[in-house]
């Protein structure tokens, strides 16, 4: 067993961490989330120059030949700085699918992602699907070689920024069948595509995507999209586990600093044992979260069942402990913790949304029980 990072991974961590410290402090981030665009393309370009967008891809596609561990390193740092630029949807979600399907579509798009020229989004959820990836009402109708999509995709991260979307749609079967789902490439500028754009409460650009005879290209094999989607979302979950670790560690640091500075009744808050114990619990949560992120990362390339189990466990754990750390951090900041003026509340909001994204704690708890055979019923 070996938990060490390679020298290259340490270098990525250092250069990214330095860049974010210099260029992406709370004030800089505040300007970005209040801007019309909702992201900073210049920052995106600089992150690309650092090699971030190229990390997981093959050298032949302009990538750095990294793997899940490299993604873990990147996501933890992005979490620490609460970066809103669309790394998760572009590189992790869409990137994983493009890598897996390969062929001409990968040859065309991956170099653009790796170069920082293309942002992508993954449209998998629907208004009635909750977290079930197989619940797909959106239809794909084939005419000749082309497809036309019709339906409504909900809360697609980076949708208003994306040059291409990957959309799940059904060529066959009933709404909740596991078979008959395909993944399609859609240009959001095309006729028949409407993006209803908004910000998430934690500051990320997102949108609902309305498809009305939208032109689309099938990627991968028709009817077998679900396995790809599950793989990509599990990768997304595993990346979020690393991101949540970054959030938790930063929230603990900010709370330790704040309680040291703030005096009440003539002593710093940090001298109150009851607060010290809460901060000790926050520290423990962060360490254990890191362990779960590391474990899930090590299983990101395992067979689908092992990977799914590891992702479900990690999601349950980060949902529970991430929210605990966030709520405790806000509580220890007192009234200041519930204002938008301090960073801590923004970390808390994102931690809360990470519990919801890709399925909350309850959902993945049940998924784990089903995958392990602890629970037999389908209820």
């Amino acid at each position, binding site marked *: 067993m070996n*938990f060490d990072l390679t020298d290259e991974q340490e270098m990525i961590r250092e250069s990214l961490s330095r860049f974010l410290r210099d260029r992406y402090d709370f004030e800089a981030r505040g300007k970005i989330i209040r801007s019309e665009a909702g992201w900073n393309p210049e920052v995106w370009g600089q992150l690309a120059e650092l090699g971030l967008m190229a990390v997981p891809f093959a050298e032949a596609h302009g990538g750095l030949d990294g793997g899940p561990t490299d993604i873990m390193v990147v996501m933890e740092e992005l979490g620490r700085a609460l970066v809103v630029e669309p790394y998760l949807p572009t590189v992790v979600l869409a990137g994983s699918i493009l890598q897996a399907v390969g062929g001409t579509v990968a040859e065309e798009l991956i170099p653009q992602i790796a170069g920082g020229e293309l942002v992508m989004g993954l449209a998998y959820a629907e208004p009635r699907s909750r977290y079930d990836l197989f619940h797909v009402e959106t239809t794909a109708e084939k005419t000749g070689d082309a497809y036309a999509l019709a339906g409504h995709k909900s809360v697609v991260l980076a949708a208003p920024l994306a040059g291409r979307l990957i959309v799940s749609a059904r060529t066959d079967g009933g709404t909740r069948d596991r078979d008959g789902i395909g993944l399609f490439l859609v240009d959001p500028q095309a006729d028949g595509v409407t993006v209803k754009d908004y910000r998430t409460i934690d500051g990320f650009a997102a949108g609902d995507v309305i498809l009305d005879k939208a032109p689309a290209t099938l990627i991968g094999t028709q009817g077998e999209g679900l396995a790809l989607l599950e793989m990509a979302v599990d990768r997304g979950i595993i990346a979020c586990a690393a991101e949540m670790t970054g959030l938790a560690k930063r929230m603990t640091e900010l709370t330790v600093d704040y309680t040291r500075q703030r005096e009440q009744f003539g002593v710093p808050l940090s001298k109150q044992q009851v607060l010290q114990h809460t901060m000790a619990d926050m520290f423990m949560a962060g360490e*254990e979260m890191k*362990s779960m992120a*590391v474990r899930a990362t*090590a299983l990101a390339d395992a067979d689908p069942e092992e990977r799914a189990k590891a992702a479900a*466990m990690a999601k349950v754990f980060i949902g529970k402990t991430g929210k605990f750390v966030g709520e405790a951090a806000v509580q220890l900041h007192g009234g200041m913790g519930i204002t938008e003026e301090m960073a801590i509340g923004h970390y808390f909001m994102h931690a809360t949304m990470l519990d919801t994204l890709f399925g909350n704690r309850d959902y993945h708890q049940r998924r784990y029980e089903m995958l392990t055979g602890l629970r037999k019923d389908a209820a």
Partner: protein
Amino acid sequence: MDLKFSDREEAFRQEVKAFLDEAWPAEKRGSKTEFTRDNYLDWHRKLHARGWIAPAWPEEYGGTGWTPTQRYIFDKECAAADAFPILPFNISMVGPVIYTFGSDEQKERFLPPTLSGDIWWCQGYSEPGAGSDLASLRTRAVRDGDDYIVNGSKTWTTLAQYADWIFCLVRTDPNAGKKQQGISFLLIDMKSPGITVRPIITLGGDHEVNEVFFENVRVPADNLVGQENQGWTYAKFLLTHERSNIAGVHQSWRALDRLKQIAADKDLYGDAPSLMEDADFVRRIAETEIDLTALEFTELRALAREESGGGMGPESSLLKIRGTEIQQRISHMFLDAAGTYGLPFQRELGHKEAPPSNSQVGPDFAVETAARYFNMRKTTIYGGTNEIQRNIIAKMILGL
């Protein structure tokens, strides 16, 4: 990063398994072997004969030279076979103090029987007035010629009723400035005149801990370890050594396996739905499995740091806190699994400390569930309460 075990580590696992099949075969497993002095010593001596009793010791004193990962594999396989965990008193506590601070003569005299089990050690630290605040201890040792005369009492002394010797913290200089000063580390033969042992029966009828009284007990000055009045240094050293398998992860996995078997056992439920069909119970099991996985990988990360020379340090407080919380949760689930048969107090029929119960009823597994649940309350109290552990994290890691 690579979390698979190497071929060498897998080969080692097979070696451990083969040893266990012989030394701790199936008929001893599944809580079929009662914890008694003889049963424990039988296991201790088998490990000693194989050279595996003290894996973490330096090789020159009888250690195995295993890596932390090998120790982890060894602990895991032993737990999977329901073997008794090795008690810390000889191997994790007094042994390391003697080989680190003892004289050559003390090493020669005490280390071989400490390893072999010919001496059963108990720990004389806590006193009626000094629990978590250990340094406020008052047991006195006064120099008299070649001896010390010891007066006072120790409490919570685990298995003192079995012990041959006790290692004690005693106050040799009551006038030293700070209470941490003036303490010495003394080895005392339990057969010395003036020592009496009073059992303390804990909730659920267990006799694990005792009070030990010293009345004008004469102890040869040769039994002083290290220097007089420097005992606090040795005590602190010992406390940082008390961390091997501190989280009890392997035992908790084994217990969860047993619990799942019980909860699915058709004989127990007949036509009624089994506990494994109870979504609320299943949820508690699943949550515990997930939390235990997080703890296990936190321990593995700590071991890896130790392996690369980083040392474990105050992170061991995390392992202690989470490990004991989970042990208590599991003991509670066993009690719940027993249902109403958790109620009858029928532990060790005829146990002299237990009130009279003449019949054993209910499923076998249920007999000890309540007693075990009550017994496990100790885990968040001993070894520095979990609140003390949080103080340590706050102070040593967060710098508060």
